[in-house]
């Protein structure tokens, strides 16, 4: 009986996810030209760095134990994971704004998890470009099917970590009143560290990548697995990314009790 309940719940959420995703996509497609411009714009923006790095490596050779291919992998994975997070959970970086404006009401009235409902009800258009970019890079680097599957898996786990970090930093607004800027800073931080070879950072600093700024779990560990397959390490990455997601959900839930709603009728900020 219990198992049937769980199955029914899963089915209901799967249908809800699919419907939400379809609505997001249709909503983005309402402005088709804008969609295409943003997606391709983002890909070209990202591609500019390929040129930069290829020149650099031509001059220096390997950097911190990383070859050109490895750095491209960091870019591809960060970009696709960041993209997937923003494609599926477009509201993750806007939660504090929703809280501040009292806009969580709509989600609180509906019989679905508030966090899941709020996160999935928006998609960031340019993120589709980020998401696709990683796979384009991977195609250029030329890998075999098992590596493609590994990459896809790490895109999902990375997206979970990104989403977790966004949700945690945005949830601070429940406790602080407003946390505008914190998520932006956290995003910049993680991205900056995720896009450079781990080896160039002093070893005393690397613990940061596996705690506060979880770049380690988003890209560095996956890269090691990608270079030489290790089921233990892969499992660790997945477990940590799930833990991040659950931690974020817990912090959000704790904050939700302090939610004060609001009556916004075109008032100035």
């Amino acid at each position: 009986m219990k198992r049937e309940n769980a199955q029914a719940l899963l089915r209901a959420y799967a249908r809800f996810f699919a419907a939400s995703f379809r609505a997001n996509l249709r909503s983005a497609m309402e402005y088709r030209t804008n969609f295409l411009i943003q997606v391709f714009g983002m890909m070209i923006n990202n591609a500019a760095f390929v040129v930069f790095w290829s020149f650099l490596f031509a001059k220096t050779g390997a950097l911190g134990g990383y070859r050109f291919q490895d750095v491209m992998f960091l870019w591809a994975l960060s970009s696709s994971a960041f993209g997937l997070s923003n494609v599926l959970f477009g509201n993750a970086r806007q939660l504090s704004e929703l809280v501040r404006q009292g806009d969580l009401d709509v989600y609180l009235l509906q019989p679905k998890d508030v966090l899941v409902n709020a996160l999935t009800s928006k998609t960031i258009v340019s993120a589709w470009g980020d998401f696709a970019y990683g796979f384009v890079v991977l195609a250029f680097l030329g890998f075999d099917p098992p590596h493609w599957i590994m990459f896809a898996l790490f895109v999902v786990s990375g997206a979970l970590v990104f989403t977790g970090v966004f949700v945690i930093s945005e949830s601070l607004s429940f406790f602080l009143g407003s946390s505008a800027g914190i998520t932006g800073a956290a995003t910049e931080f993680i991205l900056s560290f995720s896009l450079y070879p781990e080896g160039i950072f002093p070893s005393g600093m690397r613990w940061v990548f596996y705690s506060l700024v979880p770049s380690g779990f988003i890209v560095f560990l996956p890269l090691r697995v990608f270079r030489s397959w290790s089921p233990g390490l892969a499992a660790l990455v997945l477990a940590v990314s799930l833990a991040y997601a659950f931690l974020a959900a817990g912090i959000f839930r704790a904050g939700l009790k302090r939610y004060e709603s609001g009556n916004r009728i075109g008032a100035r900020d």
Partner: protein
Amino acid sequence: MTVIRTRNLAKSFSVRVGTRGAFSLRSLLRPEIRLVEAVKGIDLTVEEGESVAFLGPNGAGKSTTIKMMTGILYPSSGTIDVLGFDPQRDRKRLGFLIGSVFGQKSQLWYHLPPRDSFRLLGAIYEIEPRELAKRTGELVERFGLADLMDIPVRKLSLGQRIRCEIAASLLHRPRLLFLDEPTIGLDVVVKQEIRALLDEWNREGKVTIFLTSHDVGDVEKLCRRAILIHHGTILLDESVKSLKRRAGQRKIVGVRYESPTAIDIPGLEAEKRTPDAAKFFVDSGAGDLQNLIRRLVNLGPVADLTVEDEPLENLIADLYRTGSKEEADELVNR
């Protein structure tokens, strides 16, 4: 069956008081916090099938109360039971049974046609696709939405949007519908349509209505019971019929003479006066009305004479101005 029961329901917010200027170090480090009691101990019970108007001036605590009943806000103290559930603990399960239309907050997707939003709501409320199609069809017919279903919401007029909004809130067949200012900003015709639709839905026994509105028309046309709160407490809980009767006990008598006339009625002050016309408020009981009219007619040749019930709006405005339950009782029982 009882659908809403609250006991001693209270909610207070802590508000930071800005005292000494924007750059004061003290207000930054140790801000002064004041506790604002928005709702102070509300006891109320609503039975299945009722249509209740929840009235009160701005800031009386209406929205806060509704938000606690729907699980949006946590009460500071007291208990709430809605359809057998604790709205905070069983928010999701309760969500399947209640509907809501908050005039300011849409549940339709702005860039999508209503049909897409209906489909998404079908997934959120776990309505089987076949059943969803059937219910959508019914609501489309009932609310006259056939031409609107495929137009993006941003291109609909406010009246069209609210019609879609209400239909959307009924899609999962809620047993209790919360409406917060549903007719705000609508023109007279649309207001009447929406009231008629909601009234019909309520009278067919499909839904219990709990509504807040500043439009007395909503109250008169749609609700059979009125609960008035002020400063976070209930001042009055009456049937709309008896409220109307009480308002109607006071008459407004208007008179206009053919030429300027000294309009003096001993013991009765005119509310308004021009050289040839005046307006009086008088109780209809105890022969006062008859007396007044006789005297007015005796003063000179009358061009026009009108007698009207005092509008319910006036009584409600007077009630809003009172501060306590005693004053309100006195006003209603005068």
